[in-house]
């Protein structure tokens, strides 16, 4: 019998009952809540008269609808204000920990979970948000759920889940300077398609992964969902354990050592067999950008926009035509000739301090192009404070970027941070769907360094040429 994968070990260790048909009742150790996906969960719980089974396993924070221009005082959008105060009241009524908008620990759920040590190796973690895959970077089984499932987790601490197949994604090689996790994610999806990981749980492995910081690992796992996988994981190692040591919700003292000893046993066995395997040599990779309205419309920045006649099939050709039309670009156009109006640096994909440092390195001593409006939105208030302590805010402001308060902002465009119809944005977020950043807005996905370079030049550009 072959060995077990990380996914097998996480799955097996959380089975309450195996139904024998590929599904099991799975225990959920930790649950993060945000304002937009949970109100109906509490409505349902109240209707059925249910309480929280283990209130201490939940952590709630507003991030989706929050304004980023100002912090403190009244929120001008009454709908956003109502949603945020509903989360606060719901948390209080059910005894769940709530981090207030003005709290220093506030931020995007997928940034603050790790920051607070709420995210740990070996656990199952659920959240009403598809980018919950981010937490898999810690060797956790983390997945997005809908509002009804959030209610089930609160009342029963478990969910019926279908076990996925396993997919090994091997990243080997040493990337060039200015090429990183975001480029790896876009290259994988660009080369293999948005469905390449559908029905699978990804484990990222290989020497390139071992060299990555926790922030980079989170970026990579974050975009697993864009490849069709609900789960993306990296086994915990020294980098993971050192990141967690001393964080508020992490085990302390002897419990930490005991936990680390357990966490070490979770890596995939040497003889584990994956259902599918994909490899990427990151050493030869250039920075990637998207041109269309699906994350798989990704190409190296020096490339040209493809022609629908060259699409792999008729359906895809039709989609490319529509995407070119929506994006206001044409086949054969050089990606670097695409001018932009807006720049967004932030999100649960790329709003961490490491991301802001890279963007600031590009922005330092340069100016945002005259026709471009650019914002930097830290992923959490802690990230914002850290960046300010390092002087990154000054670098951005002097270069002509706006320095905002933390939140999901222009990634989900629920607040006033959104594109006007026809505007084009260089964005470090995760989705370039039609209307994602505002009705008829046009999104090009890329890394923080690439977005900063685009801000300075006013068009898509290879960051390696900007800082050469």
């Amino acid at each position: 019998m072959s060995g077990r994968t990380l996914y097998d070990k996480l799955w097996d260790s959380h089975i309450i009952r195996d139904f024998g048909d590929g599904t099991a009742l799975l225990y959920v150790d930790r649950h993060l809540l945000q304002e937009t996906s949970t109100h109906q969960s509490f409505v349902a719980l109240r209707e059925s008269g249910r309480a929280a089974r283990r209130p201490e396993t939940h952590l709630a924070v507003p991030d989706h609808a929050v304004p980023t221009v100002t912090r403190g005082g009244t929120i001008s959008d009454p709908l956003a204000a109502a949603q945020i105060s509903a989360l606060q009241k719901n948390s209080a009524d059910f005894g769940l920990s709530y981090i207030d908008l003005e709290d220093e620990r506030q931020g995007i759920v997928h940034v603050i979970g790790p920051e607070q040590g709420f995210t740990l190796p070996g656990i199952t973690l659920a959240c009403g948000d598809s980018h919950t895959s981010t937490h898999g970077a810690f060797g956790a089984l983390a997945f997005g759920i809908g509002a009804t499932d959030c209610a089930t987790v609160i009342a029963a601490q478990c969910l019926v889940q279908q076990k996925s197949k396993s997919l090994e994604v091997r990243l080997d090689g040493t990337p060039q300077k200015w090429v990183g996790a975001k480029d790896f994610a876009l290259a994988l999806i660009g080369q293999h398609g948005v469905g390449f990981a559908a029905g699978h749980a990804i484990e990222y492995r290989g020497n390139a992964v071992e060299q990555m910081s926790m922030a980079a690992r989170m970026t990579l796992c974050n975009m697993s969902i864009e490849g069709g996988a609900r789960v993306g994981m990296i086994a915990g190692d020294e980098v993971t354990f050192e990141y967690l040591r001393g964080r508020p919700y992490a085990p302390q003292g002897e419990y930490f050592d005991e936990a680390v000893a357990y966490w070490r046993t979770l890596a995939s066995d040497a003889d584990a067999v994956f259902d599918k395997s994909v490899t990427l040599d990151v050493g030869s990779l250039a920075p990637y950008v998207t041109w269309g309205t699906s994350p798989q419309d990704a190409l190296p920045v020096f490339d040209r926009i493809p022609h629908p006649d060259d699409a792999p099939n008729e359906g895809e050709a039709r989609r490319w035509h529509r995407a070119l039309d929506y994006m206001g670009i044409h086949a054969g156009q050089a990606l670097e000739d695409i001018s932009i109006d807006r720049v967004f640096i932030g999100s649960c994909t790329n709003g961490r301090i490491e991301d802001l440092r890279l963007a600031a390195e590009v922005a330092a001593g340069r100016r945002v192009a005259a026709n471009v409006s650019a914002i930097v939105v830290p992923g959490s208030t802690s990230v914002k404070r850290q960046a300010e302590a390092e002087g990154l805010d000054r670098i951005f402001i002097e270069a002509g970027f706006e320095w905002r308060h933390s939140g999901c902002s222009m990634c989900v465009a629920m607040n006033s941070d959104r594109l006007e119809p026809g505007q084009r944005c260089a964005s470090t977020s995760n989705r370039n769907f039609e209307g994602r950043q505002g009705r008829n807005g046009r999104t090009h996905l890329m890394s923080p360094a690439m977005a900063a370079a685009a801000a300075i030049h006013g068009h898509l550009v290879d960051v390696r040429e900007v800082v050469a």
Partner: protein
Amino acid sequence: MTPFTILRSPVLPVLEDRVDTDVIFPARFLLLMQRGEMGRYFFADQRFASDGTVIAEHPVNDPRYAGAKILVTGADFGCGSSREQAVWAMTSFGIRCVIAESLGEIFAANCLRNGVLAITQPRKVIGALAELGEPVEVDLEAQEIRAGTVIYPFAIPPAHRERLLNGWDDIDLILANEGDHLATFEARQRLLQPWLYGAHHD
């Protein structure tokens, strides 16, 4: 939850691939908090121009499909964000069954939680259902789609089928049937990983 047994209805064809949840229910409407008002924003940015004008060509607005409870669509329907609002917008619009070439995983799970039958069929069957021009009957008990003289079988995990047929809700099922297993699991885990049970400080 309303049980799903046999559904007879015209079909609403949205024959596109990769219709994501941002298209089904644009993010700016996520500020709404009442499920019942979400149906009017189902496919909002494709059905209405920026000034609110109805775009008559969109199938969701097409009077030929008025009252349809069965949505027929392409590959990867419901991919993207986990927003259950996409399902609520769909049910509040009147859809109870989705037949797609393939489905976003979280979206499919959300359908099940809301008593919506979401199943897959090959591309050619999708095309045939869309072009039939008469009501289709979806029989969950028999696991078949009856379209005119043709019968297409469909697969569904037995547990999902049973839940939908009975209109069961997860929390009721778990607490009624699994309470002992759950308590046993917690007692064992508390011994093995005490740091997950509040014993994380010295």
